[in-house]
């Protein structure tokens, strides 16, 4: 966190000054470790074993927060008799189909709900479309009143299943799998559990590298299970906090730049299953479940009204048919492979540098070299705009500048201080930015670019009589502009996102005001309220010292300016704070409503004792002690019966590339990961195959001094000089083993490519003992390319495309490699070296 989020790390330091204990678990000793109370080195890719070990420690010693667990999680819920665990099937759950490498989750369902599997989509399609991502805020879609055993004794209840599932994750097994000493592991277990009580809470903070694994979603799930068991969710100082990778990455998930989501986590309609507005809405609202998704029709129709304005009416299903429908995997990696195959004509890159920053850099560049046109908008002439003339493939002869067919349009972009708008950070808080200076020369904001591009496209089609152009003609695209360059008003866009009454123009103050009849419109239902009372709430800047510790008047957080989600859980089942020290939101008997320091995440006047009638569904079905109001059963999910592709509970699998066999099960790696088997995307072999050609584990991450793919730092002298060269960190032991000289050069080889780096020998990397033998890990930053003031090879060239099945994120934080002394060969000899290694594996 200190490395990649130095500004946010000030709060960790402040907490530490107030007595918090900071534990840092990481494959290498970083600037965060330097300031932590204790540092635990771990083998990259073994996190589920580590956290699963803590889950086992909690359950075996009955250290869970029992009252919280029984009332607020699905621990008591009974699961189908048909369910078989990885213990029974040696690493697989019941329902696995080796042909499609997917699961049929019918047997995972709650008891009595077996028939409700997933009738809507086939499971391969769910993986293709990263459908689990659509559950990010949807919950897992379970029915409202499953059978429960609140004594937690029934062998089919989630608690007992969880206990059996993690029983083999003993401290000894953790030590053997993760390379952590039992002592250190138990120290973490004790610190975590002792600090999770009615009076104290523990926070789990991770950076997005944690997601970049073939089991990335299950990593986070393990953390969530642990935090639920210990009663740390929905309580102040607890939670699972994702540190996002750049400014407003949270914002670009809320108002997404993803192929399978629409604003506010509405799923992108699917061509096969969502033929009508009704079908689409039903797929979101899931009649019969509890919670706020029951109002999905209002959210969806408000979005369609925002897109198509007056043209969207109840008679034409609010122009639902105009929405593009997805037919499968349109993710960034399949798109790149399609480029290589000549199936993609044009590509827009906005503030993104995949030639350096995305996995399998060679594939990225070869793909971009096979387009008709490419538009790059950036601050500098980044590698994704120059790949045709100066990439490593030009040196190897794979791209010939004179013959490269791609026409590149490089357009200068305005930086964040040269335009106005909002950033949404990890707490879901929107903060308005004022423009500090005008952008120089021809630099323009993204808002300007898209508004005028859309305007010109509409002008181009204005007179068309072709039916397929009607959606463009009817698109509502009317924003006030100002200044000599006709810059659109960012506040007007924010107001539309917030939503308003069509007739009066009155801004909505809460998403509960959204109507499904077309009388209101709003671009992103979860953001409704950010323009409450016609005031830009995101621009509020009341200093912390002038308000309560929750600071509700700084910026604005979705939903409804709520700073802590599911905060009903900060009070006990009777609505009283769990402790004075951790009082946050509670039931006020006198006034008959929920009150406290934050906006209660619960219906304001629904008492803690409320029991819904049997036949209720939606919001009305939530009981007074159902804090997880977006879940189908109102409970925190220790076990996920529906919605995940790779299993209802996290299970340790080895990374796609590993020098070790799976110590826990016969199943080596995630059986459902999304793979692209093609000659230009080879994978390094893992056991039982011949794996010692690439004997070392590598991981990559960022340095404080640079920003991701370097587009904002390598071109700026005062930043570039701070870390001027690509390097590799190795332990003194590995340096001796491989004859690497401090300050000299090393070549790192995988089956995709070979790169060179300067050698930094440091005690911050330490060999670990895993499965009785020593494993060396090396670390690489990934900021360099051939452009800028400081140049170097890109670590992402080493990585192959192997994706998590739930959200299609790449496994880029762990892989295997060889490290050899000296510089890499250049020209065609580079490819020959890579081929030689690959041949060696087949020997």
């Amino acid at each position: 966190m200190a490395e990649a989020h130095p500004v946010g790390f000030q709060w960790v330091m402040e907490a530490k000054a107030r007595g918090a204990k900071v534990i840092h678990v990481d494959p290498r000793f970083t600037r965060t470790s330097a300031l932590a109370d204790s540092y635990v080195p771990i083998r990259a890719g073994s996190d589920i074993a580590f956290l699963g070990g803590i889950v086992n420690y909690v359950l075996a010693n009955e250290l869970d927060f029992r009252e919280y667990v029984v009332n607020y999680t699905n621990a008591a819920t009974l699961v189908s008799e048909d369910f078989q665990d990885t213990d029974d099937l040696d690493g697989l759950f019941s329902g696995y189909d080796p042909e499609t490498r997917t699961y049929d989750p019918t047997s995972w369902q709650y008891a009595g709900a077996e028939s409700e599997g997933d009738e809507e989509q086939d499971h391969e399609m769910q993986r293709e479309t990263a459908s689990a991502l659509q559950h990010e805020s949807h919950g897992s879609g379970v029915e409202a009143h499953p059978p429960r055993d609140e004594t937690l004794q029934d062998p089919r209840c989630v608690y007992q299943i969880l206990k059996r599932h993690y029983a083999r994750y003993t401290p000894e097994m953790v030590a053997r799998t993760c390379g952590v000493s039992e002592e250190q592991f138990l120290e973490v277990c004790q610190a975590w559990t002792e600090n999770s009580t009615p009076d104290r809470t523990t926070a789990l903070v991770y950076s997005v590298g944690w997601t970049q694994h073939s089991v990335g979603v299950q990593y986070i799930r393990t953390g969530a299970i642990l935090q639920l068991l210990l009663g740390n969710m929905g309580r102040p100082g607890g939670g699972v906090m994702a540190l996002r990778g750049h400014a407003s990455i949270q914002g670009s998930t809320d108002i997404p730049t993803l192929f399978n989501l629409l604003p506010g986590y509405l799923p992108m309609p699917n061509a096969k299953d969502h033929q009508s507005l009704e079908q689409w809405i039903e797929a979101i609202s899931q009649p019969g479940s509890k919670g706020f998704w029951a109002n999905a029709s209002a959210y969806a129709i408000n979005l369609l009204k925002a897109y198509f304005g007056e043209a969207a009416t109840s008679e034409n299903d609010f122009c639902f048919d105009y929405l593009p429908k997805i037919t499968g995997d349109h993710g960034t990696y399949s798109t790149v492979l399609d480029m290589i195959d000549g199936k993609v004509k044009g590509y827009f890159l906005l503030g993104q540098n995949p030639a350096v920053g995305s996995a399998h850099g060679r594939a990225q560049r070869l793909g971009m070299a096979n387009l008709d046109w490419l538009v790059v908008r950036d601050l500098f002439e980044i590698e994704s705009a120059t790949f045709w003339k100066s990439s490593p493939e030009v040196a190897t002869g794979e791209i010939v500048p004179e013959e490269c067919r791609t026409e590149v349009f490089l357009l200068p972009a305005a930086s964040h201080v040269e335009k106005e708008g909002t950033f949404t950070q990890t707490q879901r808080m929107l903060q308005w930015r004022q423009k500090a200076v005008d952008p120089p020369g021809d630099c323009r904001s993204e808002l300007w670019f898209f508004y005028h591009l859309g305007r010109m496209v509409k002008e181009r089609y204005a007179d068309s009589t072709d039916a397929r152009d009607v959606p463009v003609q009817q698109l509502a695209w009317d924003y006030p502009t100002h200044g000599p360059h006709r810059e659109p008003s960012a506040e007007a866009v924010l107001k539309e996102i917030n939503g308003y009454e069509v007739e009066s123009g009155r801004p909505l103050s809460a998403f509960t005001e959204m109507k499904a009849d077309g009388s209101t419109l709003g671009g992103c239902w979860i953001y409704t309220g950010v323009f409450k009372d016609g005031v830009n709430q995101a621009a509020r800047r009341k200093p912390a010292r002038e308000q309560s510790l929750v600071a509700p008047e700084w910026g604005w957080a979705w939903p409804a300016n709520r700073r802590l989600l599911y905060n009903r859980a900060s009070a006990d089942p009777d609505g009283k704070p769990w402790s004075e020290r951790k009082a946050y939101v509670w039931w006020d008997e006198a006034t008959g409503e929920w009150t406290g320091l934050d906006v209660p995440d619960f219906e304001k006047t629904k008492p803690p004792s409320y029991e819904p009638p049997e036949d209720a569904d939606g919001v009305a079905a939530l009981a007074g002690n159902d804090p997880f109001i977006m879940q189908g059963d109102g409970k925190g999910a220790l076990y996920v019966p529906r919605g995940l592709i790779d299993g209802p509970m996290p299970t340790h699998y080895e990374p796609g590339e590993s020098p070790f066999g799976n110590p826990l099960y016969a199943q080596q790696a995630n059986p459902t990961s999304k793979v692209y088997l093609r000659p230009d995307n080879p994978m390094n072999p893992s056991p039982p195959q011949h794996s010692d050609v690439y004997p070392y584990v590598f991981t990559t991450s960022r340095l404080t001094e640079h920003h991701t793919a370097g587009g904002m730092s390598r071109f700026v002298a005062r930043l570039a000089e701070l870390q001027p060269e690509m390097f590799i960190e190795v332990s003194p032991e590995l340096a001796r083993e491989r004859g690497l000289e401090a300050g000299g050069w090393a070549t790192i080889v995988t089956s995709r490519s070979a790169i060179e780096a300067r050698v930094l020998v440091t005690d911050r990397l330490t060999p670990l003992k895993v499965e009785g033998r020593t494993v060396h890990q090396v670390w690489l930053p990934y900021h360099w390319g051939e452009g800028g003031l400081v140049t170097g090879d890109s670590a992402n060239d080493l990585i192959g495309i192997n994706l998590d099945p739930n959200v299609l994120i790449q496994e880029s934080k762990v892989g295997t490699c060889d490290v050899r002394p000296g510089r890499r060969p250049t020209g065609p000899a580079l490819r020959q070296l890579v081929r030689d290694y690959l041949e060696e594996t087949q020997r």
Partner: protein
Amino acid sequence: MTSLFGENDLWGPLDPTKDAGYGEDRPKRKGFFTDTSICIGCKACEVACKEWNDVPADHFDMLGSSYDNSHSLNANQWRHVAFIEQPTRAEPRQTVDLGMPVRAPSRPPEEEPGEDAEKPDFRWLMSSDVCKHCTHAACLDVCPTGSLFRSEFGTVVVQDDICNGCGYCVAACPYGVIERRRAPEGDKNVGIAQKCTLCYDRLGAGMTPACAQACPTQSIQFGDVDELRERADARVAELHEAGIMDARLYGNDPDDGIGGAGAFFLLLDEPEVYGLPPDPVVTTHDLSRMFHRATTAAAFMLAGAVVSFLGRRR
């Protein structure tokens, strides 16, 4: 003591601003307290300093010395973050490299990480160094042109347009902070002595120096020196109470060899570990004694000469 110099003019506790002749309405002495125990080595101070003071960035070589690529305090580096990778107590103390030829100590025989062969606890110390703005500033005392002056804030500042590049200050500084700019060629200040001004221009406008403003963890604290000294004492006491007995202050003592620094530090190890001199003394410390001795010697010589002439007459 001779009456040529006021009490503590050359060393010992002193209010340097009063001494420099500023009136009673002068502002309180300003300085930095750099608490290295919470430095995260982000180098925001280095960047902010260069941005505000327009200090050139022209050193694009990797040094291979942990994460330090800016080398030292010098004409183009007015803040410098040191990175010290240090196994605690397991190996003999690291010493400062004096640039003398030495034989590398042979490493102990290779050890496979066996069951008990755990790595020793490891520390990675980070510390942002800066000009100390000494109470008795040798650079200022030796400057023949008056380019270096004591500001109303008690800080020591170079005036680029007055400095003639003689370099006396460079040799005089007991910390090796001040240096004449050698590059980049064509820079207006090449040949001119350069160092931290404690952002004199920002102080004049009531602003915080750029480095302290940019520091995310408040490792660099700016304020009145009196108040900062109290804060530093409290912080050391707090760390001692938490069992961190290595914590110590450096440069805070008005009785030390420079009369106390305007910019002082909380360190977690001996100053040498951070590349700081353990007991710096202002180079003008012995000036009055030297003057006494020289005068006495001169007097004796004169007396001798007189005596010899007297003798001759006989």
